[in-house]
């Protein structure tokens, strides 16, 4: 059972992380190539707090808060740039985060942080916590999508200039998306740190940012169920594919490519298309 618990925990954390990016990229249309930085901020902050002997819930809350605050600051800066410029700016934020962490001795520098205390819960208990948070994040996403804010996000994602012309305070909504998305990423990071119990700068690098973006896009950008499904599958895919070890990454790349090439709306798009065909409508 322990193996299944480990897998479900990893899946759950990935789902939370992917949903957090979905708030920014999926709902609000702002592409981020540096989202792993906020995951890392949450992880480092939470780990430092439990390592100093303070309780785990406090650590999670602090990681969430710090990631959200820094995310908002980055969001304010990002208001100046748009589209592909924004994508590359966020990528830069990711590299800057790594560069800074690498040099901080109090964060373990290159050595990372070892000996992070456990959550105090049993393995199954921790899994349950992760899954409950993941479910809550999904429920929140669904609620948000149908709320007024969700509609405004949609219009910004669609066409920022038109939204502005309609009198929508685009900056404020973009900032809220950034704040919520980065805070949730921080929460996922805090959970990650107490699951793996060893963190180092390389765990929050560019590859991780790309991986989570791939989850969102493969799931179907903006679709909550698609993103949940894609995050769950993609996070454990490398483990399921152990039997083809040598071709594992090749297959992963091919999967990303093929989903985009043949169903650019991701898994969610595939399901919609199938449903339409089954219903006999064009």
């Amino acid at each position, binding site marked *: 059972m322990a193996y299944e618990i480990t897998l479900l925990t990893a899946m759950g954390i990935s789902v939370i992380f992917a949903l957090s990016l979905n708030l920014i*990229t999926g709902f609000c249309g702002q*592409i981020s190539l540096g989202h792993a930085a906020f995951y890392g901020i949450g992880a480092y902050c939470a780990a430092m707090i439990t390592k100093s002997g303070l309780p785990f819930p406090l650590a999670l809350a602090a990681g969430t808060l710090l990631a959200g605050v820094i995310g908002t600051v980055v969001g304010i*800066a990002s208001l*100046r*740039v*748009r*589209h*592909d*410029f924004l*994508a*590359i*700016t966020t*990528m*830069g*934020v990711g*590299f*800057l985060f*790594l*560069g*800074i962490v*690498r*040099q901080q001795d109090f964060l373990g520098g290159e050595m990372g942080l070892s000996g992070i205390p456990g959550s105090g819960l049993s393995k199954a208990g921790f899994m349950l916590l992760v899954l409950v948070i993941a479910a809550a994040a999904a429920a929140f996403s669904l609620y948000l999508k149908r709320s007024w804010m969700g509609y405004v996000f949609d219009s910004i994602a669609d066409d920022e200039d038109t939204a502005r012309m309609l009198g929508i305070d685009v900056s404020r909504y973009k900032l809220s998306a950034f704040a919520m998305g980065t805070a949730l990423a921080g929460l996922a990071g805090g959970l990650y740190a107490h699951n793996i119990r060893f963190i180092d700068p390389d765990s929050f690098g*560019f590859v991780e940012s*790309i991986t989570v*973006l*791939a989850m969102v*896009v*493969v799931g179907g*950008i903006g679709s909550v169920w698609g993103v949940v499904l894609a995050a769950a599958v993609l996070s454990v895919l490398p483990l399921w594919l152990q039997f083809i070890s*040598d*071709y594992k*990454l*090749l297959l*992963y*790349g*091919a*999967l*990303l*490519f*093929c989903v*985009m*090439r043949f169903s*650019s709306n991701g898994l969610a798009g595939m399901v919609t298309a199938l449903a339409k065909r089954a219903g006999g409508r064009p």
Partner: protein
Amino acid sequence: MLAFELLLQGLVQGSIYALIAVGLTLVYGLLRILHVAHAGLFTLGGYIGVLVTNATGSLALALLIAMPAMGLFGIAIYRTCYQPLLGRPPYVALIASIGLFIMMEELFRLIFGPYGLSYVAPPLQDPVGILGVNLKQAELAAMVGAVVLIGGLAFLAGRTRIGTASRATVTDPKMAEAFGVNIARIRDINFFVGSALAASAGVIVALLNNLVEPTMGSVPSYKALAIIVLGGLGDLRGTLIAALALGVIESFGTIYLGSFLDRDAIAFAFLIAVLMIRPQGLFGKA
């Protein structure tokens, strides 16, 4: 003296960045696609360069084979991978491109082995004195190559019908088409030229490091993106200057800021600083 040497080293690095980024900017200018897999062509160019040189002993022949071969490969990638995605949101092509790049890196590892390849007798390794500073011939070749190839490209873009057509297509594809420009052909040509330049960079980098690894393209894959953004996305002159500037900043930064930030972080700190002041890049139009 040291400053001059650091400047030269920065220009060498910048020239390589330029050769890679120019192709990317050509593609971006036309299609608004962040073509990450471009770095895979750069790596494959390096592999072809080493294999051909080792087999025949001629670096020139290696370049003559690698550049057109990668050019054609670039066209093939455009036609099979990007063309069907042109009407889609930009992130679709971006993720497809990343998937393609991962596949290419893994194929290189499976085909050529994880250890990478080296020149048996690497050419152009002798030192050349420039104003009292020694450079390898290969380093000089990187700079001269970049100047000749990119300068030639700029000349052609400015003076030939294809160049004019290409610029017109970048500015306003619909209008260009109305004036009888064959857009499909322009796109093929841009992919061919950009990919061939990346291949030349691959051959040169392989020569400088005497090593081609499967992951040789992973740093250029993201740094070239930063460069074209810095240069103003789609602007040839801006890309060239941004590439050289980044090379020089990294060169000085490695020595004087190395204990605060690593090379990538220095480059991106510069990028963010520029974008905060000029959100459209150094030479982009507002």
